[in-house]
């Protein structure tokens, strides 16, 4: 029961981070700020949610798989952030308020 509550609060906090990241994505002026908001907030949010869900899992195998998912999503997210930043810098787009 307690575990349930902890899990729920972790997921809720994770969701808050996601919301914050999304607000940042929508509100920040240029591409680097947006990336910053997105990668940071989402990375943390994802971790919290994944951890929360892992607490609710039935078996060790399931926990393992959730962690695997977290690992790969985080990796992909980081790579994407890198690619966007790199592309923005190459095309000189980051300076413009777009």
């Amino acid at each position, binding site marked *: 029961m307690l575990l349930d509550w902890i899990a729920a609060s972790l997921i809720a906090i994770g969701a808050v981070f996601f919301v914050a990241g999304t607000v940042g994505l929508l509100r920040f002026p240029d591409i680097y700020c947006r990336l910053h908001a997105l990668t940071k907030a989402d990375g943390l949010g994802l971790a919290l949610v994944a951890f929360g869900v892992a607490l609710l899992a039935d078996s060790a195998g399931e926990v393992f798989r959730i962690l695997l998912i977290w690992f790969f999503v985080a990796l992909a997210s980081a790579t994407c952030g890198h690619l966007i930043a790199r592309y923005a810098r190459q095309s000189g*787009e980051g300076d413009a308020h777009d």
Partner: protein
Amino acid sequence: MTDPLILFDLLLGVSVVALAVAVMGARDLFAAIVLFVIFGLLSALAWARLSAPDVALAEAAIGTGVTGALLLKTLHHLRYVTGQLDQFAAPGMTPAEPVPMGVIAANAAFCGLITLGLAVAYLGAPQGGPGFDALVAEAMPQSGVEHPVTAVLLNFRAYDTLMEVVVLLAAVIAVWQIERGLSDAPSPDLGQVWQGFARLALPAIVVVGTYLLWKGSEAPGGAFQGGAVLAAVGLLLLLSRAYVPRPAHRGAARLLFVLGTGAFAAVALLVTGGGRVAFQYPPDQAKTLILLIEGLVTISIAVTLAALFHGREPVALPSRRDHHDT
């Protein structure tokens, strides 16, 4: 007592519709494609919610993943051709004139009318009404597999599935035909971080794809989902230029495209005889045959989807990147 998740359903439903409107309304094509990908993923979520995990997987992997990749590749090509490649968020191919309100209103009204008409018909139909449930339950023991969707796909309605693979084959032939002699947009150099990611992700994807295929006979998953995931391997290889298609590979590629369809059709034909018709697997060999077909079809699907992403058939690379090659 309503299901507590109904709120979630409502929210999801509204989001899906809103995203659909956004996909049509977004002024930037790139944004439209990204919105479309989100739309597809949320739709898949909805289908998972409707106890259709196989469909959700297929939609996420093929309907959204592969389709999204195809769309982005095309957008990239268009911008290359029209010389807009350098702009980070170029406007769409259409002049970005604002659409008059009257047109929007008319479209909305038209849209509403169709929705209304179909909704009336939908609400008049029996909900959760008759279906194949009983027939499938009755036939399952003879199907050779434990998962009903796989049984339908590869046994009860295997004819449909064969033709579906044929559609895929037709698509790749048509694409090769259409794009012959077409020059490529230069693929972007994605840098070291990307290469590292690709190296790490590749084996994991192979494992996941194979796992999906293997699980297909008893649980959600199967040839199409597995094939799509494996196709991602192909996409990664192509994007990271770890694999560059060459003319010499054409024959092998043709063979791989045809492999699944050919094996499927051959098995379907060869089981006939002794009173059995096409597709009528002998019950004791049904599982083996179905697994054989699934395995080969998965390979073909993966290769075909990757080829659809790559587009034109492999041609000799020009010595210099030239606008009009071959």
